């Protein structure tokens, strides 16, 4: 990856590695419990119940970034799971149960006490059930009723009017499921759930996301972006997985301060920035250099991905009298907000305008169905809004499907056209 320009980025990377090392120590030496969860699970509950949780997608990204995905995905196929199945959600499982698990990054995942996922597709429960059976670990799955109330401009209602926006029957159902999850976490940790602790944590999550919003605004307003997209992702996600914790809030503030200071001082991530590019979809974890590949040739800088922008719009909840209900509202519609019409396409266009985007690279994941859908709607909506679109058909973790050289050439040709317009 290109050099890290922000001190926050270096700190975030080091903190993540240190957190994982400490987790392994606690699990191996003190037999402390820990969980593995899908990225859209309510990590806040794990925090207040004192059960550390490893995000399945984060770990898949780490495995992929270390160029180990082909090895483990081959093992998955050798075990009888065919090559067309989803990879983003299954790579971590493969790295923990198949082949030489010891060669996984940082020593690999220790045996979890709990596996937890929300069923936003038809396959993830199978991945998690296979995984839980292998480790004889507890399994908690949260079902996902569909949204039928999808008013325009969800991000204008989600902070204060979340009760109305996310449909009471869906929220109540999610709370009932949370109660089952809390009971499971209580069994594992021996802790009693305290609703006031959750409320306090939720307030801290709001602070954290407000810092991210300030950083986002600085990126929107600066003539040239003060921070590259890849560094945004590292900083934001390191904090999001621990959201509301003292470290996470403090890190979000440091990141905000650094980005705002750079913007105020006129520091640009790429001084010859001419085109502001948006990346729609999860990152290509095995080839993060792709995101700087067009800076030299076209002055094209990736300034936006969902990771920073979704923090404030997707997570902030004001009115925390019933924090479980508020947490349910944060959880129930992530898939609709990020991946499906009408909410995803409408939000992407709004984001593109706010960030003065010149062109969009839109990923259609080849090996992850939940995030593959809705991409045509996003592409067409961006195009209708006057933003040229470069479709990228690739997988976010499976480097076996990626021809980086060819994609750089095709991306460059697309940007040539954008420049000529």
């Amino acid at each position: 990856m290109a050099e890290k320009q922000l001190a926050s980025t270096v700190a975030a990377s080091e903190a993540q590695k240190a957190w994982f090392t400490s987790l392994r120590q606690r699990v191996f030496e003190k037999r402390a419990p820990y969980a593995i969860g899908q990225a859209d699970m309510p990590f806040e509950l794990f925090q207040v119940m004192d059960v550390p949780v490893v995000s399945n997608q984060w770990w898949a990204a780490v495995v992929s970034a270390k160029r180990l995905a082909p090895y483990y995905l081959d093992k998955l196929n050798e075990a009888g799971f065919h090559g067309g199945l989803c990879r983003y959600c299954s790579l971590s499982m493969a790295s923990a149960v198949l082949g030489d698990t010891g060669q996984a990054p940082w020593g690999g995942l220790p045996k979890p006490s709990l596996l937890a996922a929300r069923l936003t597709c038809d396959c993830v429960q199978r991945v998690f059930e296979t995984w839980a059976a292998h480790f004889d670990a507890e399994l908690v799955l949260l079902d996902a009723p569909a949204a039928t109330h999808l008013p325009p401009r969800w991000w204008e209602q989600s902070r204060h009017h979340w009760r109305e926006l996310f449909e009471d029957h869906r929220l109540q159902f999610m709370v009932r499921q949370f109660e089952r999850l809390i009971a499971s976490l209580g069994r594992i940790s021996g802790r009693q759930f305290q609703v006031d602790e959750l409320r306090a944590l939720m307030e801290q999550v709001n602070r954290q996301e407000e810092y991210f919003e300030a950083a986002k605004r600085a990126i929107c307003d600066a003539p040239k972006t003060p921070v590259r997209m890849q560094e945004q992702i590292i900083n934001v996600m390191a904090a999001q997985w621990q959201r509301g914790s003292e470290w996470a809030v403090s890190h979000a503030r440091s990141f905000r301060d650094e980005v705002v200071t750079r913007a105020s001082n006129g520091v640009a991530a790429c001084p010859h920035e001419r085109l502001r590019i948006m990346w729609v979809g999860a990152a290509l974890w095995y080839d993060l250099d792709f995101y700087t590949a067009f800076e030299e040739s076209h002055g094209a800088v990736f300034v936006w991905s969902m990771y920073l922008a979704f923090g404030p719009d997707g997570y902030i909840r004001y009115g925390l009298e019933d924090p479980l209900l508020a947490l349910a509202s944060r959880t129930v519609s992530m898939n609709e907000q990020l991946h499906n019409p009408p909410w995803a396409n409408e939000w992407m266009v709004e984001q593109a305008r706010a960030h003065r985007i010149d062109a969009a690279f839109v990923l259609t994941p080849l090996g992850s169905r939940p995030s593959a859908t809705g991409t045509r709607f996003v592409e067409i909506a961006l195009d209708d809004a006057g933003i040229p679109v470069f479709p990228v058909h690739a997988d976010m973790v499976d480097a076996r499907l990626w021809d980086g050289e060819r994609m750089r050439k095709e991306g460059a040709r697309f940007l040539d056209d954008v420049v000529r317009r």
Partner: protein
Amino acid sequence: MSDRIAGITSNTVPWEILRAAGYTPVLLEDEPGPTPHADRWMEDVFDRRIRVIFDRVCAGAWDRLDKIVIPRTSEQEHKLYLYLREISRKQEGPALPDLYLYNLLHTRTPESHNYGLERTRQMIRHFEVPEGALHDAIAESNRARRCVRAILQKRRDGFLKGSVALGLIRGFYIEDRTCFAERVCQDLEGLRPIPASGPRIVIQGAPLEGATLHRAVEESGGYVVAEDDWRGSRAAGDHDVRMDLEPAIAIFEKYFYDEISPRIQPSSERDAWFHRELERGGIDGVLFYIPLQDDFAGWDYPRQSRWLEKLGVAHAVVRDGRNSSALDAFVRSLRR
């Protein structure tokens, strides 16, 4: 038959509620031809039948439909609902029929049970079903279910090829169920045993695309005795809708406990029918239909194949429904 037609996308739309509300429910099926609207808006991850439904509805080609009812039974149907809603909102092309989502969940938890029951009651309210009409609709549907089971029994007894059985069962989804029941009773009466039927095969895996695979097996000399598919052996379920319960509860529990969905959890519940079918005995082999576009059957396959190996039942995987040398060799290897 009622004049109002409700298109349904699969097996878990409560037929009884629609019927009692004065609709004729009709399954929306695949049909040949290009799908330009689907090609524009849908990613490759959607199955052909879902693409055709989206395409024809967007094109206004199915303007006979007064309503489309979609259950939350598979992710593809969920996305179909969202996509059609968006096309309707954008007002591109002709006006779409009213869309209705039946938020039936399939995790077998008390929370999903309570949630689904309330959604079923809500659907009865939304469709303004006249009091008492549900009982008649349940009785009508139960008669048709018994006919489906009669078809399955005839096949099990060696009177009906699998491909023919699938063709008969299709009527359960696309015909008036009273007419279906009467017709099937007549059709089944004069059947004679098929002479020298071949090895008896169960099909497992992803949803089937019609009877193509059945015909391929039959051409190789095999006899498809059952398939884990809602358009075949699973169409009627094991039980009728109970007449001794409050109709909303009886209908909901039928669709919650006695139907097939890729979202059923845990796997022991998903596998229950398959295990019972094999444990009855008399099965020579299992054919897994798992195309590479599949996103869920492939996760179940290693577990299911390990179980078959313990039972000593031969099995093979096919990636498409057409006849192939591998399929032919497998069926011939099972020859009785």
